[in-house]
Structures are given as C-alpha cells and as structure tokens.
C-alpha cells in the first residue's frame, strides 16, 4: 500500500530521537506561516482534552522565544511550554529548545526540536527531529501513549475473545 502524501511517518533512528515526516498540499511559505505565527498556531496546536491554550508567543529568529501556556478548569496555568530558537534559516530550517512544565514547576519533558522543510511542485515536505536528553526520556514520550494504544488493542482483543466460539 502506498502511503498517501498526507500520511505521517514516525521513526526512531537513534536512541534519543524521534523523527516525524509529513507532506502538505501547500507551498512552503504558507506552511511556515501556519507553523510559526501565533494566531495561526492557535488553530492547529490543539490542546490535550480539558485544556485551553491561553497564551502563545513565537518569535522565529535566533534567540527568539517560544512560550505557550494552557489552563484547565482547576488551574491557570496548568501547563507551560518554554523554549528558545537556536537556529533559524528562513523557509528552510528552524531549531528550538522546548521544556514542558507543570504549574508546580516540575519539568515533564525537555527536548530540542528541529524542523526542516523543502518544497517541490507546490507540495511541502516537513521533517521534525525531536532529540531527548536520554533514551528513557525518548521512550517516555512515546511510551505513555503506547501504553494507552496497547491497552485499547487489548480491549479490542478481549471483545474478539468474547465473540469467539
């Protein structure tokens, strides 16, 4: 089966990295604008269930800030993301640090994210390389989700078993 242009590919080329690749049916300048302009970001940076994005700062230039905050019904902020842009090549490459913290100040995820873009015939190819501090941290980023995925899978199997003669 040939993956559709929109299909997201996720690989783990090294112990500490996750690489996401995806194509968009849009020119690179629009993808760049959508990904790094706060008003546009609000539209697609969908928050986790129950959370609302309250502030969004994105300054895609060397030394510029990346700052997002979310609130829940009980806490404002309940979670923050703070980072700094460490490399920006306009319409080509962008690197930023990123630390996600709870209101208590406890950092739950810390990584470097590199975005690389190329455009061919109106289609934009993007790759995001996330580099974590350790293999454990990398596995944790995927793993918490993987457990849920596996659990859903087990539940489907339980249902299948119940139906089996």
């Amino acid at each position, binding site marked *: 089966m040939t993956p559709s242009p929109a299909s997201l590919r996720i690989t783990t080329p090294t112990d500490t990295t996750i690489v996401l690749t995806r194509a968009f049916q849009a020119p690179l300048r629009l993808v760049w604008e959508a990904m790094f302009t706060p008003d546009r970001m609000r539209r697609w*940076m969908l928050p986790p269930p129950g959370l609302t994005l309250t502030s969004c700062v994105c300054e895609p230039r060397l030394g510029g800030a990346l700052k997002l905050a979310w609130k829940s019904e009980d806490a404002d902020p309940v979670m923050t993301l703070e980072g700094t842009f460490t490399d920006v090549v306009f319409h080509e490459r962008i690197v930023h640090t990123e630390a996600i913290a709870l209101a208590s100040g406890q950092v739950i995820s810390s990584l470097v994210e590199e975005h690389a873009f190329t455009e061919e015939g109106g289609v934009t190819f993007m790759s995001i390389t996330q580099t974590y501090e350790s293999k454990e941290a990398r596995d944790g980023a995927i793993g918490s989700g993987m457990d849920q995925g*596996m659990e859903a899978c087990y539940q489907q199997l339980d249902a299948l078993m119940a139906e089996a003669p």
Partner: protein
Amino acid sequence: MLRQLSSGERNLSELAAPLRMTFPAASKHVRVLEGAKLVRRRVDGRQHLCRLSAAPLEDANGWTGQFRRNWEVRLEALDSLLDEMKAEERERRRR
C-alpha cells in the same frame, strides 16, 4: 494472555495457569490468537511454545500509539488551516 506473552515465550500450561483456564480452553484461546496472526506457536517435544507475533499489533494500532494520534490530529488541523490560507490568498489575488 497477550500481556503474559509480551514478556516472552510461554508454554500452554504457563499461559493457562494464571488465567485459571483448562489446558484445552487455553489451547482454543491460542488458536483464535493464531488465527488473528497475533500469536505464533511452535512445538518443541511435548511442549507447545507460544510467542507474540508483534507485527499485526504494531500495524493495527501503531507502536507509537497516542503519540502518533496526537500529532495526526494536529497535522490534520494544520491541513485544514492551509486550505483556508490558500483560499484567502486566491481571494486576495482576485481583488
């Protein structure tokens, strides 16, 4: 049963015991899992050894699970936004 197998190869008795199943019931269970290509069984002497055939599980749900889905949802929202932005641009050019 799959949870048990996720930590390694087991024979049928080992699989049956914690589930309080009889040997034939466990065997039937394994047959269903084999049919779904989730488990592989090999016979070693008198033992039936089972192990996870992980590939279909990975294919079915993606080993990246929720991480993948979170990104997919966002990137699909980004697709919609890009469609709007393309339309805005066409509109501006028309004026």
